[in-house]
């Protein structure tokens, strides 16, 4: 049995979580998931400004903080902290911790190869719209193929203490140690599916240990010291989800089921670079306090294509808010919205989207909500987006004047006009597997 703990569900997750995981109990592998789709464009921008950056900057200081502990206990770390510059990330770790052996996995970043690939007819068509990437080529910020668990397992085989990858799948981080330790091969689909589903459960950190859980949430103990998840994996593909004793949160079959359903598409076809996992094959049962056991998982052959996540700039947006108090808070906010729209119309400004919500009066649930009769206050929230930055800038000037020249009791204008932000949009595509060649190297 091996213990694989996930200490980070996204870049920005609780900084103490990975430290607690290695301090509070036994762990063999610590995995950290830093990359969301949007993160790749952020790190790409950072690399353009400074070629020594372009990775999750939280990661090297974290490793420095836990270096002694992971050496003492022989805990090995696997993370996708590399962003678009895994090598620079590895060098920074080596600078802070010269005693650690650090391996990088590269080959996911196809941004430098885009023109060559497009020139050969690899169109990278948008999976949702069907449009070829050529249409937005001059606005592309990043492009990465999702690589699976096998290159990460290859990196573990070098004996590295820390494996730094770029855009690998979240599930691959958990599956890689199982492949490495149990010797699973590339066509053992059921085993690979089991490790993939284990990875899916833990990839959002504490969301499988009681975080964001609807089941009797008021009785979930000690959120302040919530335990992050640990997979206890067996060579036969069965596994348990648990956490360190004495930590907060809760693990039971309902908590784990909620996370299994999270961001799920077709449950029979959960597609990764390693296999296609079947969530309808899962057998799940409570197995003691804060412990759930999963068996029976089946999977099918991996797909011939890999998913590409590209990002590109797509105009500008701004979102502004004002608060209106009782009485008639909703009616006042609705009147203010009509005034803003009328003023924008008279200015001749048009947007790709103009969206208004009334927070406190059904913004989250829409028609499914039952609004209160006359709430103490509501927040008016107006957002615009469009390709013309000047129009979006002009919109940001239209909210605050309402405090003096519109319906009564407007407040909450905070820091003045809202900021204008450039939109970095997401472009999902597919690429033939043979286009992507990964490389593993121990960094000196």
């Amino acid at each position, binding site marked *: 049995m091996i213990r694989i703990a996930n200490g980070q569900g996204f870049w920005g997750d609780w900084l103490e979580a990975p430290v607690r995981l290695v301090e509070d109990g036994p762990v063999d592998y610590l995995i950290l998931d830093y990359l969301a789709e949007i993160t790749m464009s952020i790190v790409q921008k950072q690399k353009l400004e400074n070629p020594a950056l372009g990775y999750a900057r939280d990661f090297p200081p974290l490793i420095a903080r836990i270096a002694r502990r992971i050496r003492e206990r022989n805990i090995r770390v696997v993370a996708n902290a590399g962003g678009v510059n895994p090598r620079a990330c590895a060098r920074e770790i080596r600078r802070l911790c010269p005693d650690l052996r650090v391996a990088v996995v590269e080959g996911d970043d196809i941004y430098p190869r885009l023109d060559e690939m497009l020139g050969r007819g690899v169109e990278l068509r948008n999976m949702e719209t069907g449009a070829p990437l050529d249409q937005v080529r001059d606005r592309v910020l990043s492009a990465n193929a999702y690589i699976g668990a096998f290159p990460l397992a290859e990196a573990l085989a070098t004996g590295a203490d820390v494996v730094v990858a770029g855009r690998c799948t979240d599930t691959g981080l958990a599956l890689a140690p199982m492949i490495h330790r149990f010797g699973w091969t590339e066509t053992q689909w059921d085993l690979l599916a089991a490790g993939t589903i284990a990875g899916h459960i833990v990839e959002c950190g504490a969301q499988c240990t009681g975080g*964001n859980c609807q089941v009797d949430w008021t009785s979930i103990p000690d959120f302040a010291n919530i335990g992050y998840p640990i997979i206890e994996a067996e060579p036969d593909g069965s596994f348990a989800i648990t956490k360190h004793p004495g930590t907060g949160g809760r693990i039971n079959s309902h908590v784990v089921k*909620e996370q299994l359903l999270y961001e799920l598409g*077709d449950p029979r076809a959960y597609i990764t670079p390693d296999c296609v996992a079947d969530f309808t094959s899962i*057998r799940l049962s409570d197995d003691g306090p804060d412990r759930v056991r999963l068996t029976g998982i089946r999977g099918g052959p991996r797909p011939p294509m890999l998913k590409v996540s590209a990002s590109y700039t797509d105009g500008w947006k701004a979102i502004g808010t004002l608060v209106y108090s009782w009485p008639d808070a909703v009616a006042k906010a609705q009147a203010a919205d009509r005034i803003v729209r009328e003023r924008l119309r008279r200015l001749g400004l048009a947007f790709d989207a103009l969206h208004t919500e009334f927070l406190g009066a059904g913004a989250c649930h*829409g*028609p*499914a*909500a039952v609004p209160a009769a006359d709430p103490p206050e509501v927040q008016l929230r107006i957002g615009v987006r469009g390709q013309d930055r000047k129009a979006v800038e002009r919109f940001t000037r239209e909210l605050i004047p309402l405090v003096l020249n519109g319906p009564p009791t407007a407040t909450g204008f905070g820091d003045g006009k809202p900021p204008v932000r450039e939109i970095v949009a997401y472009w999902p595509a597919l690429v033939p597997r043979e286009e992507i060649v990964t490389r593993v190297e121990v960094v000196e």
Partner: protein
Amino acid sequence: MRIELGRIAHARSGDKGDMANVGVIVYDERHYPVIEREVTAERVKQHFGALVEGSVKRYELPNLGALNFLLEGSLGGGGTLSLRVDAQGKTFGAAVLRMEIDVAEEEL
């Protein structure tokens, strides 16, 4: 009798581009046939009304006592394009539990 879905089930939701996914899970597996019968794709589409621009698709996971719904065009463009406060559909899993369903007393 009519009950709120939340009496027999819990849920979690998230985003996949401009699509929200809503997973509905029964507390007691005896109630799976009830949600399978009552919580159809059509009912979910009706429940969320104008919030869902596209269609609703349902998948069954009887092994988990669960249904998974995909709500197309429900996030105002999704991801960074969305101007919604709940751009990821994080709260849809709570909203779905307000749905009223018909159930025979002996089924509870």
